[in-house]
């Protein structure tokens, strides 16, 4: 039996106040069971003090000691500053004393807190089970091992609710949060057939509420990570909680809504993104470009020397995409007007952010825009342009009464490992092979720190000092042309 420390008792009183603000979900999270609250309140009133908080800390510690002797432990919230949902009872250290987290008994007179201790996190009861991997490798096998250790350690599965909460928290470290087999394994920890309601009174009142909350927490984590439960989960839930329980209800809802929303993404991104940066860039560029006839070209593969590490190659990869329409537009572009390399802009693929640059030109002012006329002989079967003046009124008008945002055309997109001008210049050089007219057009680099916004074309506020004046760019282009003519 262990005395509670002063902090714990303080936390207990604070937790008591906090427990009144409950979120509205199927998991009403209380810091203390109602029985405990009642007993504490009763004993406080017995002590003869008007309010619970009015009594001295010594009395509080005595009381707490008495309560902890009463049953298993007192749930102390906010002891470690952890979120509310985690209930970590400080069980009395009985026969199954573990070596971890043995706090000395606190004296009756409260000691001032030792400043040099720092944040001491009391370990959760079964946390040592998750530390037993000898080489520290955290993967599925060691997780399964830890779970199996628990089931062997404890035939009656005491504290299984806390163990399951702890395991749910640890899943991310072990990298198994999207593994359905692991979730089924966790559900397997529950003792079967015990929590099923057997008569009408069981079913009216929430039978074994903590266990049902725990089951719902497992399913909720599955939902958060997008894991679809299967028949084994259904069977386990029926075996553990019965068909009319809340975890089963949640399972039915998950089955319904997951199947409804499985394929609603018109631009699906695969769950396992490729690790290779070139493949990732290819995927991302294809994702962005709506034109299916666009071609992806790899201008430079990443090349790293053996001495440097792979994350910082000397030559970053450059992958670009351009469609035939864009090529044609670039060929028609007037060499007197500059084109701009803008970027980097961010693109999110699931949880990975990649950056891309674009090559675009400014809008032509209205007087210089020429409307391309299709000659009548182009198609003899039907006219390409009809100017029929039917008296149609607004019932047939599906256009929105707003001017579209006018922006200059985009000629190409690229993704590169580095965002500096040298890399992008290599991209431009590579583009010149398929777009010979690019050699004559001045290219201005407008690179900014990636703030995630597209630059303003009218005000070139974000031009870096690296942007050379156009004269120098033309020189550079001349040099490139010379190099090309030589090679």
């Amino acid at each position, binding site marked *: 039996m262990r005395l509670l420390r002063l902090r714990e008792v303080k936390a207990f009183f604070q937790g008591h106040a906090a427990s009144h603000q409950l979120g509205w979900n199927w998991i009403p999270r209380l810091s203390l069971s109602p029985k405990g609250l009642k007993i504490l309140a009763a004993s406080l009133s017995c002590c003869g003090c008007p309010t619970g908080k009015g009594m001295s800390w010594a009395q509080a510690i005595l009381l707490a000691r008495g309560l902890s002797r009463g049953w298993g432990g007192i749930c102390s919230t906010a002891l470690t500053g952890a979120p509310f949902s985690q209930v970590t009872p400080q069980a009395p250290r009985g026969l199954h004393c573990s070596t971890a987290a043995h706090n000395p008994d606190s004296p009756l007179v409260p000691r001032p807190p030792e400043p040099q201790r720092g944040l001491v996190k009391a370990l959760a009861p079964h946390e040592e089970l998750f530390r037993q991997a000898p080489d520290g490798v955290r993967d599925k096998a060691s997780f399964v091992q830890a779970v199996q250790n628990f089931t062997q350690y404890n035939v009656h599965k005491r504290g299984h609710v806390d163990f399951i909460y702890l395991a749910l928290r640890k899943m991310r470290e072990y990298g198994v949060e999207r593994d359905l087999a692991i979730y089924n394994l966790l559900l397997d920890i529950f003792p079967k057939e015990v929590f099923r309601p057997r008569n009408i009174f069981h079913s009216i009142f929430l039978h074994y509420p903590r266990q049902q909350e725990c089951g719902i927490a497992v399913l909720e984590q599955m939902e958060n990570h997008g894991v679809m439960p299967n028949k084994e989960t259904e069977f386990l839930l029926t075996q553990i909680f019965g068909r009319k329980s809340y975890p089963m209800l949640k399972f039915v809802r998950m089955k319904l809504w997951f199947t*409804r929303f499985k394929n609603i993404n018109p631009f699906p991104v695969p769950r396992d993104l490729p690790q290779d940066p070139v493949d990732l860039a290819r995927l991302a560029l294809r994702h962005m470009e709506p034109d299916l006839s666009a071609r992806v070209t790899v201008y430079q593969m990443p090349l790293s020397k053996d001495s440097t590490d792979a994350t910082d190659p000397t030559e970053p990869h450059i992958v670009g995409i351009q469609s035939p329409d864009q090529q044609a537009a670039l060929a028609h572009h007037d060499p007197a007007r500059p084109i701009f390399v803008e970027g980097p802009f961010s*693109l999110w*693929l699931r949880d990975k952010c990649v950056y891309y640059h674009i090559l675009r030109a400014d809008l032509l002012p209205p007087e210089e825009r020429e409307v391309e006329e299709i000659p009548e002989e182009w198609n003899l079967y039907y006219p390409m342009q009809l100017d029929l003046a039917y008296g149609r*009124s607004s019932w047939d008008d599906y256009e929105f009464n707003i001017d579209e945002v*006018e922006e200059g055309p985009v000629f190409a997109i690229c993704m590169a490992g580095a965002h500096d001008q040298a890399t992008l210049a290599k991209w431009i050089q590579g583009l010149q092979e398929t777009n010979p007219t690019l050699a004559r057009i001045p290219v201005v680099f407008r690179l900014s720190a990636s703030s*995630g916004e597209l630059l303003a074309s009218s005000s070139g506020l974000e031009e870096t000092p690296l942007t050379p004046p156009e004269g120098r760019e033309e020189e550079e282009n001349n040099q490139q042309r010379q190099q090309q003519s030589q090679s």
Partner: protein
Amino acid sequence: MALVHKLLNGTYILRKCPKPSVASCPFLSTRFADYCSSSLEKPVAAPGKASSQRKTEGNLEGHHQREVDLDITSPEDKPEVSFDKAIKEEIKDHFRRLKDDIVNHWIGPEGRPLHEVLMEQAKVVWQFRGKEDLDKWIVTSDKTIGGRSEVFLKMGRSNQSALLYGTLSSEAPQDGESGRSGYCAMISKIPTGPFERKRFYDWSQFNTLYLRVRGDGRPWMVNIREDTDIIQRKDQMYSYFMFTRGGPYWQEVKIPFSKFFFSNRGRIRDAQYQLLLDKISSIGFTLADKVDGPFFLEIDFIGVFTDPAHTEEFAYENSPELNPRLFK
């Protein structure tokens, strides 16, 4: 009382009143972002706008435990503390709007002739061509519950679009209550008539929502709320997902209204009902995809139109397993 509200706040300090407001759903707590100050170019008409914002904020849920002071005077604006002038202008403005309203009622719904309204197939509801268009929106994030996400709204490239940008952080606030966090939202203000009467949108002839956006690949959620005075219905909304493609091209998103599913207090309900379009109060965009990092969304305009090829009335069936009472 709206006028009393304005009297107390003649200067440009917005105060979030701890209203004993109904059923505060944490997803809809409101907080003003920085862009509000930009609307104060006309110092006379501005108190009306600033206070009308606050009044509509009171209509939406407010987080009743926090009182946030936002002093948003920009350095070059000298606040003109002149109550009488402000009040007079305010009253004149409202009477003018009332007169317009009465006159427009004779012309037709919303001041347009009836045949025009009936035959309309496509309508632009919100456009972003100037700073005053940004005033119709409120931007919130989980800062109201103690999280760390930030979100801002400003005019985009060459004043032709609105840019909603910020950083999402799913770090849960250490308040002992929330286990998860990380959301940002942009909600439209409820349209008001003269004397701040609540009005609604009537989209009963249309069947699809049209958005012209340019995103960064993140999935957003579009929420529509109905106009209702009943307290229990204030947490109900209809939502659907909007998947952005990313990239430098503008993306057209068309969501039929039959696809919106019903949710109450942030949870999808078992009994699903169709979205009825005759009394719509506001629309909102939420980002809560549990991925930390910066985001942006550029919106060109939001409109509604009739898609003649779309004949579905409602996309979600009620299942007898979940709703036995509906199938008796």
